[in-house]
């Protein structure tokens, strides 16, 4: 059997080897490795494509191992495992209030916040917050609708990705 994987790895030496060596030791055959250096993610990780060959058991063990290393698997055989979305929240409100809103988003089920970047205006009254969230492919739209409701309730402008 064969699996095509797309994972995201931090841009520091040794990351790929730390994944690939154990995989071979399970008996999986790793081939066609492609790094997308030009296509970094919002948090600076590099997408890496590779193919795993082996028995069903070996492949399952391999995927489980990768997940256990806290590595993000983006696609398995072309099927998205997670989707990231970037958006901005802006409003004429103090920083503490905008963080309240971020907290509400963080509490949404099936939404994982992977980064928050806050920019405070000169007068401390105008805040902009950039949030990157992860959702699974099938609840992406639902998650965005919930976030829109939260932003509307808190009188913040939500700027979504196209």
């Amino acid at each position: 059997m064969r699996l095509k994987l797309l994972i995201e790895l931090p841009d520091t030496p040794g990351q790929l080897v730390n994944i690939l060596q154990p995989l071979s030791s399970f008996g999986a055959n790793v081939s066609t490795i492609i790094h997308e250096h030009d296509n970094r993610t919002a948090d600076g990780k590099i997408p890496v494509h590779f193919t795993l060959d082996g028995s069903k058991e070996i492949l399952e063990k391999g995927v489980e191992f990768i997940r256990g290393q806290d590595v993000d698997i983006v696609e398995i055989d072309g099927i998205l495992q997670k989707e990231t979305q970037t958006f901005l929240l802006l409003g004429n409100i103090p920083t503490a209030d905008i963080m309240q809103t971020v907290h509400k988003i963080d509490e949404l089920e099936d939404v994982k916040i992977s980064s928050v970047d806050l920019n405070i205006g000169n007068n401390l009254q105008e805040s902009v917050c950039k949030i990157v969230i992860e959702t699974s492919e099938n609840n992406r739209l639902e998650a965005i609708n919930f976030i829109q409701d939260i932003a509307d309730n808190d009188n913040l402008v939500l700027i979504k990705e196209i």
Partner: protein
Amino acid sequence: MTVKKMRLCVLGFGAVGQGVANVISMKHEELIERYNLDIQITAIADRSGAAINPDGLDLQLALDTKYETGKIKDYPEFGVSDVDGLEVLDMAEYDCLVEATPTNIDDGEPTQSNILKAMNDKKDVVTSNKGPLALNFKTLVDAAKDNDVKFRFEASVGGAMPVINTARQSLAGNQIQSVQGILNGTTNYILSRMANEGTEYEPTLKEAQELGIAETNPYQDVEGLDAACKIVIIANSLMGWDVSLKDVSLHGISDITSNAVQLALKDGYLIKLVAEAKDGKLTVAPMLVKQGSPFAVNGTLNVINFKTDLSDNVTVVGVGAGSIETASAILSDIISIGKANTN
């Protein structure tokens, strides 16, 4: 093949109306050679009145007169004052109305009445005016159908960027599933400058006004109404929706701060005012687009992306406004009507 005469009545003699006079005088011989169309303008109107000559106006003289006195009624011999659009339509001998009076998004007048009268008089109509189309699309299209006349409005949507004709001709047979685009040059200019120069919204708007890119009253552009009108026309004419301006969820760009633009840039995003017709909803709002993506167009450029069933994504980029540019879209509509009528 015999050359066919096509007589135009031009209502509105501002940037667009004068552009039409310019391109027709520039291209007159070429249009005869290439399309067997001898296009003449027999009437031109502005707020002062009109110039009407059934044998065709001297377009250079009309442009010079407007330039010198600001009033088309001063056109030698054939100038008339104190007539409104409807009266001009009665007085003029013409085959096709070119409607280029200012956009009115409250009730679409006087454009709507002008267009309906021309259609009821069995004349074809070309317009660059979004107002009545965004308010009462069906009324106008039905009137054209009932009277068996042609009605074209390419210039109302993308200026020189071909939107309607791309979809109807090049993408004929495709179903258009969704449309997203940057349909307003003024806001794109302001947001592009804010990203490139790190400036705040207010001074950037002022600069755009000084350059003549933004209007003295920029309300319709910056609050997203102009883009909203255009996406309504697109949804009605290309996607078979039955919608009007009030159906658009609308947010403009006046609360976009330099801070927000810079924070987005840090991750390679630009903030753009995007109009979309998608999943049954019409939206105009600032959105994040990736630098280097087809939507990352700079300055006053417009862009539109059609998501289709057969051709996947098709994207067109072009100039959304300007006198000659908009007149080019009007001319393409005039030629297509002229060609259809000779066949």
